[in-house]
């Protein structure tokens, strides 16, 4: 019904307006005009009838904080309209799906799963959940359309001229004008012909990026620039203090990038990523902090920060997995657990208040401010190069020497603790091993740029499978114990109908079974990672740092 998806997009920086394509960032006084030579060229082969009036289009692009749609090659656009609007999903500028939406607030984040039912939701919900879709950029500007007619006066293609602009501060920045040849269904050859003619107009070039990419560039944004992974640029011969400080600064950046999302409670992943950054920082201080002068005293403060975030995150995990939990019920009905869900939601509200108070506190700001200062000083003083440390007089290690020594040490601990676990070992033995495995994972990630990628992927892959089993074992136990505690709390608040308590009992029984299954899988996963072959893989990894 809408013109065929085959749309030819060309940049409209014609000679009449600009001599070159430009980067679209130069502020201009008004929208660029469509040059008459474009219409003249098309007019040689088609009748050209300008549609009356110019309409204004406002587009807002949405993505998750970690650019999940962008990374998947998708662009999600909300097109404003007087009555309602619509969401348009495209991949490589080819429309994929669209759906109308009512009461959409373009300036607010929307959880992907809260999108109304429709083809766009179907395409993005699995990719984006549990994240929210945030407005990334807005462009607005006039659109005019000229119909291209055949000898019978029939419209066989359309020239759509789009003049989008973004607002940066108090400046309007006009993006490169876009001239699109839209196909009319059943007349593909005519659209191709029009596009060929347009491409030959002096000053008109094929569009190299979408309006979205032009808009974010004009706004100074860098799509894909956020990731929760460790991303310090370290090299093998770098002094170890510089490398470690760089890693820890990267983690501090990640931590701080997520604070606003936690305070505004945009989605649960902000807190998750903040907590991961805190955990990695704590492990970094514990395992490598001795090479960064002044780092060790910060360990208790980061423990405080981690503990501050735990209650809210635990409740998030419950609520995010609630559907999966209720799906396991055999005797009880999911409706029986609704009072439990309501109780968890109320608790989360309470805990979130406590968390946000902590993140707004002077203690938190002092911690991050002072920590950054310590790390920057370590970077500066360490840049003098490997040699004798000015403070201790001992030789300063290089990054690869430190990586090999510390990774080997942590691996030995994992291997020893895991080998000592038998069928009769208490659960705490597995919990402790899980902590050591996390430490090993982090130290591997910190120094990932120094390792052979293939060898690194294999070691981390096996480690991840072992961590999954240990995680399942511990999480099942913690959740089961928490269900008992929450049941007590609900009883105390008189918020626990009998059916709900029975359903919670069934959940606890299922969790006990999951824990038993995880325990049964432990030996196999541990042997795969830390058996003779696994040990050899780690030796190979550490013998060949890049």
């Amino acid at each position, binding site marked *: *019904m809408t*013109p065929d998806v085959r749309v030819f997009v060309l940049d409209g920086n014609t000679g009449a307006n600009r001599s070159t394509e430009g980067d679209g960032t130069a502020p201009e006084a008004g929208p660029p005009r469509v040059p008459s030579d474009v219409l003249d060229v098309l007019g040689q082969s088609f009748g050209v009838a300008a549609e009356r009036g110019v309409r204004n289009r406002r587009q807002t692009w949405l993505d998750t904080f970690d650019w999940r749609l962008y990374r998947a090659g998708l662009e999600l656009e909300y097109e404003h309209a007087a009555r309602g609007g619509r969401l348009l999903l495209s991949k490589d500028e080819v429309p994929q799906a669209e759906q109308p939406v009512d009461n959409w607030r373009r300036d607010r984040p929307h959880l992907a799963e809260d999108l109304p039912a429709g083809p766009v939701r179907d395409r993005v919900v699995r990719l984006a959940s549990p994240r929210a879709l945030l407005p990334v950029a807005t462009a607005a500007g006039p659109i005019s359309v000229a*119909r291209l007619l055949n000898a*019978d*006066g*029939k*419209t066989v293609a359309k020239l759509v001229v789009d003049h989008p602009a973004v607002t940066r501060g108090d400046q309007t920045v006009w993006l490169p004008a876009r001239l699109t040849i839209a196909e*009319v*269904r*059943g*007349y593909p050859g005519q659209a191709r012909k029009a596009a060929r003619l347009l491409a030959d107009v002096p000053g008109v070039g094929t569009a190299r990026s979408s309006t979205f990419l032009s808009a974010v560039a004009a706004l100074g944004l860098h799509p894909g620039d956020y990731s929760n992974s460790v991303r310090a640029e370290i090299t093998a011969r770098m002094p170890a203090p510089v490398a470690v400080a760089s890693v820890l600064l990267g983690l501090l950046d990640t931590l701080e990038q997520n604070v606003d999302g936690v305070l505004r409670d945009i989605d649960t992943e902000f807190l998750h990523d903040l907590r991961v950054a805190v955990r990695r920082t704590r492990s970094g201080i514990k395992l490598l902090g001795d090479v960064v002068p002044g780092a060790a005293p910060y360990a208790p403060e980061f423990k405080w920060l981690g503990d501050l975030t735990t209650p809210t995150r635990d409740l998030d995990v419950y609520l995010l997995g609630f559907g999966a939990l209720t799906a396991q019920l055999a005797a009880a009905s999911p409706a029986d657990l609704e009072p439990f869900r309501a109780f968890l939601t109320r608790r989360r509200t309470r805990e979130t208040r406590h968390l946000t108070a902590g993140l707004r506190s002077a203690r938190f700001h002092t911690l991050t401010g002072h920590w950054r200062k310590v790390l920057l000083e370590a970077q500066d003083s360490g840049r003098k190069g490997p040699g004798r440390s000015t403070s201790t007089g001992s030789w300063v290690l290089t990054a690869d020497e430190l990586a090999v020594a510390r990774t080997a040490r942590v691996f030995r601990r994992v291997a020893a603790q895991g080998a000592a676990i038998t069928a009769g070992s208490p659960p705490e033995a597995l919990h402790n091993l899980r902590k050591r495995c996390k430490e090993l994972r982090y130290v591997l990630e910190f120094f990932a740029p120094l390792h052979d990628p293939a060898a690194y992927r294999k070691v981390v892959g096996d480690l991840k499978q072992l961590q999954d089993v240990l995680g399942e074992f511990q999480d099942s136990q913690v959740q089961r114990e928490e269900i008992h505690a929450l049941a007590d709390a609900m009883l105390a608040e008189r918020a626990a109908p009998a059916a709900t308590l029975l359903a919670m009992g069934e959940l606890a029984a299922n969790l006990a079974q999951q824990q038993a299954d995880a325990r049964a899988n432990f030996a196999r996963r541990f042997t795969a990672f830390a058996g003779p072959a696994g040990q050899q893989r780690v030796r190979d990894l550490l013998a060949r740092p890049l």
Partner: protein
Amino acid sequence: MNIYATYNIKGGVGKTTAAVNLAHLSAVDGSRTLLWDLDPQGAASFLFRIKPKVKGGGKALIRGTRTLDDAIKGTDFENLDLIPADFTYRNMDLLLGSADGKPTRRMARLLRPLADEYDNVFLDCPPSISLVSENVMHAADVLLVPLIPTTLSVRTLDQLSEFVADFDGHQPQVRAFFSMVDRRKRLHQDITAKLLAERPGVAATPIPALSLIERMSVERAPVTAFAPRSQAARAFRSLWAELA
């Protein structure tokens, strides 16, 4: 997907005019609309400035070597597409008769894949009672029957109603409406009043005989598009409000 067929055994009673304008109004309402010009004369195609030509002809469509989807052309109006006429449609009876499966249900089967793409489909039928008519009746939800208010036209409606009532299987709803009505003619007034009183299913809105409607062939557009505030356009809007 609702399928409307403008149909009458007689020719020259305003079938194409109704199909073109009602399809346009459906599209203006925001419904995704398709008009299939089944008449080999190709008047509806002409009015939308689309060549009355289908690649492979009616044979390719009926035998399924080309899908209807391939033959669809966008009109100059948002939400409105058209499957053009083709001169080979004059042999449509033969083509349908030689098709595999049940020949009377072929058209319904061809339209089925378009159900997700369109809200309303209009079939502009050639005048006759034939295998094409039976196909249309199997496919259509509503038969829109234009009637010039004359005694003979009333007989035609009777014949058609009996034909549909005796029809084996799917029976479309028959909705007649007065077409080319001349209010100055006493006979038109009498027959219009009588039929409206006696026959359920006859639309109250008459389409008047107006030169502006004849002008469609000059403008090559629906009157609802080139003269949307005219008496003719108002009549079609009122009729569409009754029928939709």
